[in-house]
């Protein structure tokens, strides 16, 4: 597992951790059963606050990607099925709804939101190859 934190980024550090771990999962660099460093180890090595790391781990555990058990190191849980199940779609659609509402509130046009969405998908797909 590897992480790199950008202190200057506007994106909160806990989100950076979450996104990087998810990205490594997607690329297969992290697999089910792989262990992650303890909250303290990670925080010390990157000189960040333990609460930040804990928050990231808790969020990942809520999403079922990480298994956190008392006295055990955090491990990657079995990954969600990569299918177009209606359940997955409903969850993503709910999350998108929140983001899009925010964007429209900020005054972005719907075509601008479309463009941003496409741009992000392209970025992620390109990183894969």
């Amino acid at each position, binding site marked *: *597992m*590897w*992480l*790199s*934190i*950008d*202190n200057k980024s506007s994106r909160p550090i806990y989100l950076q951790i979450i996104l990087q771990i998810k990205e490594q999962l997607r*690329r297969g*660099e992290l*697999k089910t*059963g792989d*262990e*992650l*460093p303890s909250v303290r*180890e*990670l925080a010390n*090595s*990157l*000189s960040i606050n333990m609460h930040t790391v804990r928050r990231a781990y808790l969020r990942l555990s809520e999403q079922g990607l990480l298994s956190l058990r008392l006295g055990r*190191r955090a491990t990657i849980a079995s990954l969600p099925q990569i299918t177009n199940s209606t359940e997955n779609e409903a969850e993503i659609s709910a999350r998108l709804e929140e983001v899009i509402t925010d964007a429209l509130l900020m005054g972005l046009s719907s075509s601008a939101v479309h463009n941003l969405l496409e741009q992000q998908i392209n970025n992620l797909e390109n*990183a*894969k190859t």
Partner: protein
Amino acid sequence: MKNRIVHPLWTHLPILGLIVYLVINMITASPLPDRVPVNFDLSGQPAGYGSPWAVFSLVLGLVLLYGIISLVIDEAWARSEKRKTFNWLSPFDEIIAGVLVGIHTGYLRMLSSGLDTFSFPWVDVLVTGGIAVGLAIILEFLRPFRPNPQAVTIEDTSNLEKELKLRLKENRPILYWQSQEPLWVKLVTIAMPLVMLAVAAVMWFSQPWFSLLYIAIAVASSLLYGGLKTIVTRDKITVKLGLLGLRVLNLKTSEIISAEIMEFSPIKDFGGYGIRYNGKIWAYYFKGNRGVKITLNRKTQYLIGTNRPEQLLTVIKAVSGIGP
């Protein structure tokens, strides 16, 4: 990667047989008096008294201990095999366990016959030891060769390399983390100390010094819990050991002049697992047969075992800035 046992468990039947024989002997010899001679001087005269169950627990504990050690050693041997080789370490546990169980059999016979003088039971030792060792050698000959299921897959790390370089250029803090904690470490750090503590508790009143020794060994081996962890940051590579996170290796990345993947044989090259020195290379690994060999500018060499050598190599090369 799932751990699969390569070494067939049926090769350990002789020691299992010895345990069964030991327990049956003890049951058929019961009831025994509460206080019996447990220590003898050289001429066989009693020198100390205690419970016969304490003696039984000591023997059982030692046999179990050697059984566990042998389980680990044999598995390590089988995993490092490229073809079938005769594992001359395999009858080691049967030799010790056979002698112990033989002595115990003779001891029980002395107790039930009401005698007080102990003469070394050569016949029992030779018979139980001989049968167990003979069987162990036959089973070792019969043992088939099973290719190690953990086939080597070479991981593509070009993506990782690209991203790392980008992040390093931006001067961002970097952390690479991995751990090695195979099944045998869990056995040695949890199961073995529990057995030893149980034996220590039973022996506490009859042989307090042995008890203390056992407790000390149990505590020391439980400290290995957690295995080996390798942490790479921009400035240094650290290897931490066990429960307390003892730093066993701390290298500055600026001192590294080269790094490469090394395939090794744990037993033949370094004589086992753990932290090893073979006269040339300091090695740190708990499992597997691949690692990253690092050479420092003062010519010292280190080998860090890993399940993902390509990843570790890429990260080390990137942070120490030694070429692609």
